[in-house]
């Protein structure tokens, strides 16, 4: 084993931009393992890989995205005044692929991607500015079966990595939307209510509902709903809402989806959670986030977004989910999951070039690694 001389530092001009990283072979092998495991699951479910440009027209990338993501774009110029940007997300570029080159393709269309995305995050929060997303998008399936497919595929993806303890928090934004619509809360007051729900700030929620002059009965049912988390019984607890327009469909969809979840043996992993409003302006139906004990942030998220393709003049239901590869790597590191390196065999060159190369080829043919050993390791100069 060669040892690096102590006290040698890179020259002082060397820098790595904040929020980026370089992978050594050991890190890269773990990352490649995650990606190939996910790829195998995605392809096993019939998803085909989509590859989209790393940079694009900023306004194209921004289609359907919320203000926060649009503002996080790293912008470039194409030299003639048109604003380009690095991609911040894959769903929009993949949707555009469907709306252009695959516009006539038979439905459903199943696409997956494993790509890096770029966001000008505040790095002091420990967020990366370049990170990798692995995800699937299912276009043309409107039913609970399509929702279920993506959810079960997500669970299988985690299981393929050896992750046994995970929790999928599943909700449906149609319920909160139905109550807010019924109460006639919109504009700024709606924003306040949603922000309070997003922070689980009960004091602020009560204040926002008072400010919006929400009828006490509906305000109470909203406050009950957003605290509701559980398995199938949470769905029963939400049943009184079925009289509201929109809520009936949402509850029926979740009921049907729960049947799929039970049949897939995933009940233990799924919590119905009606207290999340993330992606309210994006998701149109079920939505979910995936967590694991000991990992402080979501490993992935997904949901139904039936209105995105309308931007491309297509009436096309869609559902998808994406994992953050770095979050999965973080879990693996914490859980001590090792990815074995292939066995290395050193080939002694002193036996002569022909014999050594033949020997190396036969080692590689057995699926092992053969390295040519040219003699004693060279000493590094200080």
């Amino acid at each position, binding site marked *: 084993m060669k040892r690096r001389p102590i006290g040698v530092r890179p020259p002082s001009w060397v820098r790595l931009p904040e929020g980026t990283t370089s992978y050594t072979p050991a890190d890269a092998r773990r990352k490649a393992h995650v990606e190939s495991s996910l790829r195998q699951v995605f392809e096993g479910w019939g998803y085909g890989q989509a590859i989209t440009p790393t940079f694009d027209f900023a306004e194209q990338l921004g289609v359907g995205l919320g203000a926060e993501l649009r503002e996080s774009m790293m912008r470039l110029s194409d030299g003639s005044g048109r604003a380009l940007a690095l991609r911040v997300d894959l769903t929009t570029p993949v949707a555009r692929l469907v709306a252009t080159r695959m516009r006539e393709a038979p439905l459903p269309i199943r696409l997956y991607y494993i790509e890096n995305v770029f966001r000008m995050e505040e790095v002091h929060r420990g967020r990366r500015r370049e990170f990798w997303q692995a995800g699937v998008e299912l276009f043309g399936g409107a039913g609970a079966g399509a929702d279920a497919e993506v959810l079960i595929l997500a669970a299988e993806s985690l299981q393929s990595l050896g992750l046994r303890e995970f929790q999928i*928090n599943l909700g449906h934004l149609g319920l909160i939307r139905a109550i807010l619509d019924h109460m006639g809360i919109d504009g700024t007051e709606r924003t306040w209510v949603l922000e309070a729900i997003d922070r689980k700030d009960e004091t602020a929620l009560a204040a926002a509902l008072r400010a919006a002059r929400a009828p006490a009965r509906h305000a109470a049912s909203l406050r009950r709903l957003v605290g509701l988390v559980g398995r199938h019984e949470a769905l029963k607890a939400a049943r009184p809402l079925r009289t509201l327009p929109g809520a009936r469909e949402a509850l029926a969809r979740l009921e049907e989806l729960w049947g799929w979840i039970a049949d897939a043996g995933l009940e233990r992993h799924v919590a119905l959670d009606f207290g999340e409003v993330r992606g309210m302006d994006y998701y149109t139906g079920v939505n979910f986030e995936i967590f694991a*004990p000991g990992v402080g*942030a979501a490993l992935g998220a997904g949901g139904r977004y039936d209105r995105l393709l309308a931007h491309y003049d297509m009436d096309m239901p869609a559902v998808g989910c994406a994992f953050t590869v770095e979050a999965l790597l973080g879990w693996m590191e914490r859980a001590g999951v090792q990815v074995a390196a292939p066995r290395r065999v050193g080939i002694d060159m002193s036996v002569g070039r022909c014999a050594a190369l033949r020997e190396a080829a036969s080692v590689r043919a057995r699926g092992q690694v053969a390295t040519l050993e040219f003699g004693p390791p060279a000493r590094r100069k200080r």
Partner: protein
Amino acid sequence: MLTVALAKGRLEEEAIRLFARAGARLKPSEARSRALVRETADGSLRFLSVKPADVATYVEHGIADLGVVGLDVLAEREPDVYQPLDLGFGRCRMVVAGPEGSPWLHRYEGGLRVCTKYPGIARRYFEGLGYPVEIIELTGSVELAPRVGLAELIVDVVETGGTLKANGLVVAAEIMKSSARVVVNRASHKVRLDEVRLWLGRLRKAGRAKAGRA
């Protein structure tokens, strides 16, 4: 065991007392200890003593499941954490202050400078007024700045107003009211919901019991 990050200083002792009333007493050997990590006698909670601005960092990263920190600090950092409970103590106000008798905003002919430890809050406030100001970030003794001409105004927290008065400053506008909040890591709230809810409930009850006595 849940880990709770506490903002060192005025909020910490108050928070430790509240947790004790809620049933989590420190190990006797650690009650007066200055250790940065302390455990309750029943082993149900572990407290971390960290700087106020760092509470949200520990909680956001999931190193701590819960945290106790002032809303002023949260408003500055805007961390991605839940804020389910207002504990009601540690009350203060975030204000704009300037020298007594000084004309307010619209009288200044541009070039207004504001010194603060809270550049995020200050920037958002003045942006919201549509008023151009130069925000100068300081790490302490902000009240000094107008006296010596570093800035025309300051944005800072006040409890009693004593420090402002002593430096010839008066409140020009209130930006927000602040008090101690319980923050919760998003993932902890999902995967350890029962424990998190148990403690939120106990804290709420202990806080109400005290308010009732006062």
